[in-house]
């Protein structure tokens, strides 16, 4: 039989853990709402932007933009979008696994650098002894989630774009958790550079006047479209993070209450056993006196 005092201490500690996990769940739920709102707000902008892009160009190669240039792939940059904080289930581990798989399979034998966004990315990739992007792209980018806005993301986007233009990398992919709903995330690997326009997009038949020339507008718009794409990935990842944490904390709270139930049962059993023993002793003592 377990010691009464020990069980009581364990019950106390499980109760306080449960309070923490359920509070974290509540906080994540509130943050998730905000993160989802941000995704919804970006939607009209990104939709319109891709509409205009498809109106502008049937074929990007004609434009000769340096961002659409397909080169022999030797150096690859993988942008791994992680979170700043843990306790969100397999959220960060999934990204890490996917990056390792990409290195092993798709980009085997090529130089792969990783640009980790979020504190967790940095910790994971440093441990794994993987090459972290250097030069302009080095740095920790911890602050990115403190105030996730377009401006901040766009400075990172600019750096990635210029690294591609200067030939430091021949291909850039983004690995992130796409937001599906609060309970599930989709791990997604998206090609970032070189740019590929979605095929089969029907350009509208309206006869537009372009000012300046079509090609010039595209050259100006391409980086914007890319940064919007990156921003969208980050917003998705941010919402996914809170969704994942909510689920993880919900499960933790459930587990804690199961545990509490078991502990209470064994506490009561132990207490009952102690009482029974006491009564037995008293009765035996009384009988001994009578006898």
């Amino acid at each position, binding site marked *: 039989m377990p010691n009464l005092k020990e069980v009581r201490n364990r019950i106390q500690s499980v109760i306080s853990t449960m309070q923490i996990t359920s509070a974290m769940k509540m906080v994540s739920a509130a943050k998730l709402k905000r993160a989802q709102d941000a995704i919804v*707000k*970006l939607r009209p902008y990104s939709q*319109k932007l891709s509409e*205009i892009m498809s*109106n502008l160009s049937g074929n990007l190669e004609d434009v000769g933009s340096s961002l659409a240039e397909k080169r022999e792939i030797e150096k690859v940059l993988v942008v791994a979008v992680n979170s700043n904080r843990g306790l969100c289930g397999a959220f960060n581990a999934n990204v890490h696994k996917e990056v390792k798989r990409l290195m092993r399979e798709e980009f085997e034998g090529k130089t792969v650098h990783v640009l980790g966004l979020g504190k967790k990315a940095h910790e994971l990739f440093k441990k794994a002894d993987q090459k972290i992007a250097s030069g302009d792209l080095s740095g920790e980018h911890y602050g990115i989630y403190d105030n996730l806005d377009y401006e901040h993301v766009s400075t990172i986007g600019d750096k990635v774009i210029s690294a591609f233009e200067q030939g430091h990398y021949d291909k850039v992919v983004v690995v992130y958790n796409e937001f599906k709903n609060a309970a599930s995330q989709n791990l997604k690997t998206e090609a970032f550079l070189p740019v590929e326009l979605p095929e089969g997009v029907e350009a509208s038949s309206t006869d537009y006047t372009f*000012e*300046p020339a079509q090609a*010039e507008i595209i050259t100006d718009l391409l980086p*914007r479209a890319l940064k919007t794409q990156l921003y969208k990935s980050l917003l998705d990842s941010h919402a996914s993070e809170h969704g994942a944490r909510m689920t993880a904390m919900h499960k933790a709270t459930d587990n804690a209450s199961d545990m509490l139930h078991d502990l209470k049962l064994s506490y009561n059993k132990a207490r009952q056993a102690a009482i029974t023993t006491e009564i037995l002793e008293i009765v035996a003592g009384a009988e001994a006196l009578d006898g």
Partner: protein
Amino acid sequence: MQVEILSPDKTLYAGEADHIQLPGQDGSFGVLNNHAPLIAGLKEGTVNLRSGDEEKTFDIKGGVVEVVSNKVIVLAE
């Protein structure tokens, strides 16, 4: 005409307007009612909006504008 000014973070303006002045890459230009379809690149500057007696200004860092069938959509940064 209907005007929408969108930025990645939010919708800056949505509503009716009589006249909108935009900082085009080749120089500032204005758009009135029933303008021909147009797609134009924008540079850093201010967008001036007039509807009735009201005037509004927005500072943008660049972007693009699409005008089609009396609808003006400004994608600003």
